[in-house]
């Protein structure tokens, strides 16, 4: 059953994505509205698929690459819905974020999906907390990156004085910068908690808080990048272009950590090993 709703969510997200593209092109309010309600429906299916899988497996569905990627996509949509409520004038953000959420689901649909007995090391109170919080923080970093890309496009339009279609379609620089800032302000504390809970769990499981496992190292790199960005934003008043670029650098670090380190570098987070 959980896979049925997973597929349904994937299809509905794809439709919502098309809706947001239509809105981006036509700027018709009806398109944004339709896309939004479609997205809500997809999100409901997605949530249901996660809950059902939890019931079927008997443990939180955050243990392999399929489950983690699906949950990440869920967190991204959740984050998008929060931002969308907060910033009414930024509907075109959907056309940048929803393709990512959909691609993540497509990607996870290619991963092995069978429910396997939980390896002893994962049987922990910390599993759902550490994994869920970390994954949701990634969702907000993706949002920061998306708004960063939009900022850079819009800023280029205004600076080069070529006010084309993008100028009309993208929100104001101010709004994009504030979305970037808010995403960072939510994502960074979550990442921090994710790393701390991970360390606590590692101490319980292996007797050591930190073992310079590749995933840990990359997470630390990410944390340092976002910490620097947040510090510059709050203390120096960095904003706009520089902030947008740095959130893209952080996003790159995340891409490496999530797609390369998890899959190809052996360590505690190497999902492939668990169902090899």
């Amino acid at each position, binding site marked *: 059953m959980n896979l049925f709703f997973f597929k349904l969510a994937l299809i509905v997200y794809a439709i919502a994505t098309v809706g947001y593209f239509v809105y981006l092109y036509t700027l018709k309010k009806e398109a944004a509205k339709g896309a939004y309600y479609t997205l809500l429906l997809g999100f409901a299916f997605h949530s249901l698929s996660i809950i059902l899988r939890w019931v079927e497996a008997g443990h939180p569905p955050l243990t392999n690459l399929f489950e983690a990627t699906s949950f990440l996509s869920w967190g991204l949509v959740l984050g998008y819905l929060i931002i969308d409520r907060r910033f009414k004038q930024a509907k075109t953000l959907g056309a940048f974020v929803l393709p990512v959420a959909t691609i993540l689901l497509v990607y996870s649909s290619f991963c092995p999906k069978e429910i396997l007995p939980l390896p002893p090391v994962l049987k922990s109170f910390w599993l759902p907390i550490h994994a869920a919080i970390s994954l949701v923080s990634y969702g907000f970093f993706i949002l920061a990156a998306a708004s960063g890309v939009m900022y850079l496009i819009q800023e280029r339009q205004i600076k080069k004085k070529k006010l084309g279609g993008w100028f009309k379609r993208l929100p104001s620089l*101010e709004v994009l910068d504030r979305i970037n800032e808010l995403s960072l302000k939510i994502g960074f504390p979550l990442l921090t908690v994710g790393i701390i809970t991970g360390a606590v769990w590692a101490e319980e499981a292996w007797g050591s808080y930190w073992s310079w496992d590749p995933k840990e190292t990359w997470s630390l790199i990410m944390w340092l990048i976002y910490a620097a960005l947040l510090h510059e934003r709050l203390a120096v*008043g*960095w904003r706009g272009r520089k902030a947008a670029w740095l959130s893209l650098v952080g996003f790159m670090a995340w891409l490496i950590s999530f797609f390369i380190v998890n899959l190809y570098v052996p360590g505690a987070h190497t999902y492939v090993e668990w169902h090899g």
Partner: protein
Amino acid sequence: MSNGTVKDHLILIGLNHRTAPVEVREKLSFAGRDLDPLNLFLGIPVVREVLFLSTCNRVELLLVSREPETAVELSKKAWGEANDIEVSLFEKHLYYFRNEEAVRHLFRVAAGLDSMVLGEPQILGQLKEAYRRAAERRATGVILNRLLHKAFSVAKRIRSETGIGSHAVSVSYAAVELAKKIFGDLSGKQAMLIGAGEMAELAAQHLLNQGVTKLIVANRTLSRAIELAKQFRGEAISLEEIEDYLLKVDIVISSTGAPHYVLSAAQIKKLMRPRKMRPIFFIDIAVPRDIDPEANEIENVFLYDIDDLKAVVEENLAYRRKEALRAERIIEEEVLKFKAWLEQLKVYPTIVALRRKAEEIRRRELEKTLAHLKTKLPPEDREALEVMTKSLVNKLLHDPIIYLKNRYHRDGQQVVDFTRKVFNLDGEAPLEASPPESILADLEKAPKH
């Protein structure tokens, strides 16, 4: 008019910014005269409906008449006399449109396609106002009511389906549009006006209208600054204080007569850190320029000079011109629809006569039957018979009426004549018996779409 068709003609006479100089337009606008143009034109016997539109770019008279030539001649004469101007003096500036052409022209005017600034929205409001006045004076009837409502909905459709009204087409609006894309909401933002000048003051006014809370006015002569500050309810400062205030304001409009840069890029760069990198938007309207163009390279500084803004406006106008072509297509479509309705109007007297005849027969026969019944029917049963006979008549007439309406476009008068013969509408109950008012009343009830 034994066959029940009389043709109402739509006539539009007018002059606009392209055909007549303002001296002529203003003379015909009834401005400052103690005479209501609606009364004047309604006083002409052959004129049935009137609308009078007068804006700073056009004066137009829209009439419905069954004798168009006479109506045009008499209207021109009355128009000239009322304004103390010889017809020969303004006649060469007039344009005339009839029926379909008049409909098309009115639609184009309503959508702003005939305006000096392509796609400007004010004309629609002015047209609505003109219609309100005419409707209040009961100068409009079936045809103009429908035509004007259609014109408003066509204009609305064009606005929503094409980009004719989007993108600023004046320098000051273009500046406001840019400011909005930089700052989002302008409320709570502060602006500074350096120097003065018509365009700069206009831009400042637009910014204030958009919610900018405070305007600081800097000028070489402090008295001039104080005077402008009073006008915009702002704060006056001297040129020496600019740098301090640049730490606070978000938008700067510069328009001094200085022969050299008033602000250098280095000066602005130095300000950014104390400003906590908050973005600042310079609008440099001055020639020669006031602000070092290099400043645009500084992060979070956005600088547009007059040529940049003019280029934006030119691009937006080109876009509007492209969208205007799409608007013209919509207008053609709507003109055809309206033409079909106008044509249909001619079959209405026949439809009315048909319905009346059927209703008469129904009532007569029903009364006869009821009178012959042995038992008196209770009111409920009488009611049921009424309903039954009415629906019988309606159902029988439904198809002939649809046929009349639809075939009239193709076969014209022939269909009407044929129907009138088949139902013997001109024999026992000639149409002359029915006063025209009742036909109009029936027309009013006819479905609007």
